[in-house]
């Protein structure tokens, strides 16, 4: 089965405000996809629906043919916008947690990446900068052998060198069974790493195309097209 994520008329309303409006979307395996849109367009809402943190108002969402629940959480690795680790924790505590929670977590891979970025596993989160905390969290998320990685703004708070390392991690972790969904504003930084992009605006999908198709048809980068489509 090649379809990893399927959204059928997926709608989410917060009171009278419609955050996602009848979205139909299929994400196959083996793709790296950028979820791009201005603030308040519905990116985080979509990611939260995929992770079962919100329930659809109407419509359906399937991962591997299943609605979000304990079974899908086993195969979806989620990096939220904000860190959820307690600041008293040490990196080793988090490693232990991930080993307990996720059968697909590779401690070796995580420790290897921590070492590479010079993060001491005995350090406490409270003693870390914002960027370092983000790195720790991303390392945990990318050290799972998931089917779908949902990264909500993964590179916003880290320095350019760490950003390159993170992108390298995404590239070298790539396999044809898994897909990576990355929501971000920093399009030009990740453009070369993406297969496809989804432009989302006011809860609607404006565009779902491959990066090379956009360049071929428009003669410009995705970043330039984004600036044009969403000009303020």
């Amino acid at each position, binding site marked *: 089965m090649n379809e990893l994520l399927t959204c059928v008329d997926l709608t989410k309303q917060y009171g009278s405000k419609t955050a996602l409006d009848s979205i139909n979307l299929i994400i196959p395996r083996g793709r790296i996809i950028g979820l791009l849109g201005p603030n308040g367009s519905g990116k985080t809402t979509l990611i939260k629906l995929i992770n079962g943190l919100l329930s659809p108002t109407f419509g359906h969402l399937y991962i591997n043919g299943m609605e979000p629940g304990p079974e899908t959480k086993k195969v979806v690795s989620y990096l939220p916008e904000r860190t959820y680790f307690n600041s008293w924790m040490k990196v080793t505590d988090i490693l232990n947690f991930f080993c307990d929670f996720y059968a697909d977590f590779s401690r070796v891979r995580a420790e290897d990446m921590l070492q590479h970025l010079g993060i001491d596993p005995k350090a406490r989160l409270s003693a870390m900068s914002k960027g370092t905390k983000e790195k720790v969290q991303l390392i945990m998320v990318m050290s799972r052998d998931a089917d779908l990685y949902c990264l909500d703004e993964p590179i916003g708070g880290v320095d350019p060198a760490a950003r390159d390392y993170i992108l390298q991690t995404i590239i070298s972790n790539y396999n044809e069974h898994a897909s990576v969904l990355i929501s971000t504003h920093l399009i030009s930084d990740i453009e070369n790493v993406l*297969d496809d992009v989804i432009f989302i605006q006011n809860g609607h999908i404006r565009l779902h195309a491959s990066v090379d198709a956009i360049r071929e048809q428009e003669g410009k980068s995705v970043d330039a097209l984004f600036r044009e489509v969403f000009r303020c």
Partner: protein
Amino acid sequence: MPWTLDDSRPIYLQLEDLIKARIIAGTYKPGERLPSVRELAAEAAVNPNTMQKALTELERSGLVYVQRTSGRFITEDTNIMKELKEHLAKEQIQLFLTHMKQLGFQKEDIIRLLTQEIKEEI
């Protein structure tokens, strides 16, 4: 040689050109095995599927061939290499001629300036 990509053209076409340039420059030598898709993608910091597409294009042109189970190799066919070199040279010359015309030079002037420049270089 850095993997510099620009903003306008499809990425796989640029990768194709960059690999060609490396073959011509001798970074990858005739008969040598190319690094794997994954290695090349990581090196160029691009999506592995895009790199795959570039390599498929190179296979189609005959510059690279696949040996099942052992990977991709650079052709040892000197004719293909020669053709590629001449093709790239032609592209450069056309670009040069377009620029010269934009500067308002006619054919005779271009030849005169070029001959003069080559003499000075030697």
